[in-house]
């Protein structure tokens, strides 16, 4: 079969739906038929009911969602602003970069989850604790990508600006920063997902509220359908936040790029 004769989109879609609903139907039958205990695997319809109840505001869902989003947004934004600022500084001052490189590398190498208990000791269970966790989860990659972006600035582009008598500030604002933006954005996209992981994980380890807390509660009570419902909704939140950044990137910051299909 040649590459060009791919199945039509409708055939693909139908095939995928058949697979999806087939697997779900098998799960349903296994659980309803008593072959697998609903403690281990929830019936998909039960998960659906739970998700529906949560979306209807059950178990304080929107309060928890608000808590998680606040942690995510604050921690992420602080990391973005501080990370880009530090990255620019280190990228523009090679001496500073050379000096701080081992320290940054050492800090980055620490698996961030290991410090969560200590952070609980220092900061308690509340918002500040989660903000710091979110920050730690995404700060260093943003710094690194910003440095890399700055260093990728094309010599030729700089030469053009110098021949047009650019000042130091103009060089940074009109050449270096725009050159670094694609690399910075790549980090912002991946680190948004990492930030959500940080928020949820922090909540699961030590918290009084938030989606991670809700998930933890459901698991502790062996409410498997509810746990699955939480997992699905948390995934949706994560996908949505990455999509927002994606759209911002495509429509505003990188609209000069040739359109490429990502699929």
């Amino acid at each position, binding site marked *: 079969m040649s590459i060009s004769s791919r199945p039509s989109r409708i055939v693909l879609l139908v095939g995928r739906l058949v697979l999806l609903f087939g697997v779900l139907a098998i799960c349903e039958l296994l659980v309803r038929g008593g072959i697998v205990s609903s403690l281990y695997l929830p019936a998909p319809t039960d998960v659906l009911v739970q998700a529906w109840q949560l979306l209807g505001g059950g178990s304080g869902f929107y309060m928890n969602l608000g808590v998680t989003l606040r942690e995510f947004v604050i921690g992420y934004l602080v990391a973005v602003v501080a990370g880009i600022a530090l990255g620019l500084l280190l990228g523009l001052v090679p001496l500073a970069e050379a000096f701080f490189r081992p320290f940054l590398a050492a800090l980055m190498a620490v698996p961030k989850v290991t410090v969560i208990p200590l952070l609980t000791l220092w900061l308690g269970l509340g918002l500040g604790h989660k903000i710091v966790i979110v920050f730690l989860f995404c700060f260093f990659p943003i710094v690194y990508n910003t440095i890399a972006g700055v260093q990728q600035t094309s010599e*030729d582009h700089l*030469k053009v600006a110098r*021949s*047009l*008598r650019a000042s130091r500030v*103009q060089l940074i604002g*009109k050449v270096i920063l*725009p050159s670094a*933006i694609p690399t910075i954005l790549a980090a912002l996209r991946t680190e948004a997902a990492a930030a959500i992981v940080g928020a949820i994980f922090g909540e699961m380890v030590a918290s009084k509220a938030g989606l991670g807390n809700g998930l933890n509660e459901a698991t502790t009570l062996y409410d498997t359908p509810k746990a699955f419902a939480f997992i699905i909704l948390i995934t949706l939140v994560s996908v949505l936040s990455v999509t927002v950044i994606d759209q911002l990137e495509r429509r505003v910051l990188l609209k000069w790029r040739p359109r490429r299909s990502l699929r």
Partner: protein
Amino acid sequence: MIGFELSGVTKTYGETTVLDHIDLSIEPGEFLVLLGRSGCGKSTLLELMAGLRTTSTGTIHLGQERITGPHQKIGVVFQDSSLYPWRTVARNVELGLEMAGTPKAKRRELARAQLDLVGLPEVAQQYPHQLSGGMRQRVGIARALALQPEVLLMDEPFGAVDHLTRLQLQRDLLHLWSTERRTIVFVTHDVTEALLLADRIVLLAPGPGHIAATWRISQERPREPDALRTVHAEIHEHLGVPQTVKGIG
């Protein structure tokens, strides 16, 4: 109109001497071609004249002024146009005006005029990746012209475009030059291109870079390469790749 005066220009990097005592006087309004194979220092010499590098010893004067850095009377056109991909064509042309603090409305107007001049009024709002190589090079020229320089320094500007586009660009450049008579210093390694364009050809030879020979080409433009085959053969002789007169073309 304004010319260049180079005296004893030497450029060294550590132990390596790239250019050795270049003395050259470029007349106002002259179309001078710096010809040479790669590694002879011709691009370095151009960047020294552009003020993008500093001489190790020797001086470069533009008119009465000594060149110590980029100068507003000098426009530079680079090898691969080096447009900023994140800016539209119009905003690429405006770049130098932005650096100089020209107000926005004035910038728009000047950029449009330059794009008209290089024959690309319709692509102002497009991005560089949407243009062909030849069009990008025209935009690069418009960008250099936007600040109304008196001298144009061009570093192998047509090296990366296909043959037919190159012929068209050469013709258009000559037309542009004949209407405004700016001084042009044009770097190339293409002997035919040098013969078609130059008032004077300066041949640079490597090891370290020095002026090996010069030719004054006084024939009317547009020129037929065939009519210049004697000089063509002579230049090839100097380049160390002699060819029979018949083999030209």
